[in-house]
């Protein structure tokens, strides 16, 4: 039994040792995109369109005087 197992191990090792894999890559490959087809359903319109975005309306805080509170106190300090 032991001898049989040993025989099988040696035999398989020899087989593995004998197999030599050679990998070879294609030197040139060509794709014809025109003839390629994609199967599916169109859900978006085919034509080009541009959606106008909302224009930002600037509302900057512009100068607007509603009182002269600071000036009243400053002028009092400048009197005496």
């Amino acid at each position, binding site marked *: 039994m032991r001898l049989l197992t040993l025989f099988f191990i040696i035999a398989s090792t020899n087989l593995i040792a004998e197999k030599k894999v050679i990998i070879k890559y294609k030197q040139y490959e060509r794709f014809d995109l025109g003839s390629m087809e994609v199967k599916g359903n169109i859900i978006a319109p085919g034509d080009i369109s541009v959606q106008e975005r909302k224009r930002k309306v*600037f509302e900057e805080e*512009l*100068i607007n005087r509603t009182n002269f509170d600071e*000036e*009243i106190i*400053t002028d009092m300090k400048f*009197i*005496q």
Partner: protein
Amino acid sequence: MMKLALLTLFFIISLVHTKEKFTFSQKVQKNINRGNLYTALLDITDKYKRSRPPKEIREQLILIVEKIGPHFFNTFSDVELRNIGIPTTNLIMAKRNLYLGKYHYALKRLNKLMKNEKFQAQALLVKGTVYYKMGLIKRAISSFEKCSQIDGDSKNGLIRFHQETVQNNCRMNLGRAYFKNKEFEKAISAYNLVPKKSAKWPYTLLEKAWAYYHLENYNRVLGILLTFNSPLLESYFFPEAQALKAMSYFKLCYFEESEHIINVFYKKYKPKSSELSKLLSKRTPFQFFNLIFEDRSVLKRRSLFLNSLLTQIEKRSKHKLDLNSLFGFNSEIYKASIHSRIKDISEMQEDLKNQINHSVKLSMYNFINQIHSTSKHMFNLQLEILSKKRENLYKKKTILNKDEDGNIKNLDIGASDIFWDFRKSFWADELGDYTLALKKSCSKARR
């Protein structure tokens, strides 16, 4: 017997006390007669800082303060001022309470002053300001109206100038109270009460222009601001006037003109801002005090701008009073009388120099802050102009023909108004009464 002994003792003590008081009062009077006013003042305040001085001492104190001014009491505490109890110290305490927001205490102090004729105008001015800060605009208007009618009658030139300053301030504050209450036409009438000879008059122009701005009379705003181009007002510093000018053109939809004013503002005020920053970054002792006494012809050659700022500061009443006090110190030290307290007076002089230096420095900081805050407003306005111009472009708006500008039909004419053309010369009686005649073209297309 016991009673007799006690009575005699009481009589002797009161006699000694009266003699002392009499002697002290006599000593003060002698110093006043010799012109050693600061020595007399120091003697009184040293003796009566913690107790109320008697009536005759208080009267002598009032006389001294009338001649030298009240700056000496600026460093006194409230308790010390209350002890002294003369009208000047009451006024100082009222103002302090106003600045601290303690309006009821300020009014309490002012009510004591109202009976004193000499201080009535100032008391009404402070009272009106207290009511204004409290939001009681009607009462403020009433106080300002009363004090604007009180004419100064002093024969002393400096005191007369001070009285006129108080009166004109009351008139300006009356305008400001109406302005805050949104009664713009009444505000304009109040501002017109300030005479053209007054140093406050140029300031009324800017505030009047704002009142016209709120009435949407932009032609009038631009006309008033044109006054600042006159040679008489070239020393006055009003960066805000440029912002208001640009805003008025913007409201009339004259975007190119508005942009031009913004560009001119940056070109004109950027070097001025750099100059002021350089001055403020120096840390020499009494730098600003020394600037006041620098030779003006030299300063004009060095910097016309700094010269004009100092001219503006020198027109203030407080500044004139402080300089008068400073010269008073100098003359008392120079006399070097054996009765004078030279050492103490020298310390008081140093203290006043510090106060003047600080006041001028604060003014310079105020000037540079005005440039920076106006610059921020100009920047915002520039963005808004770009936005409006882009909007016009997208909506394909065309510009109106400008032939209608300058037409008298564009003016907002009052019943008693008379108009004539401006012929490139600023006559004194015409200053402040200019108006433009531009046509507002915002709603229509422009080419």
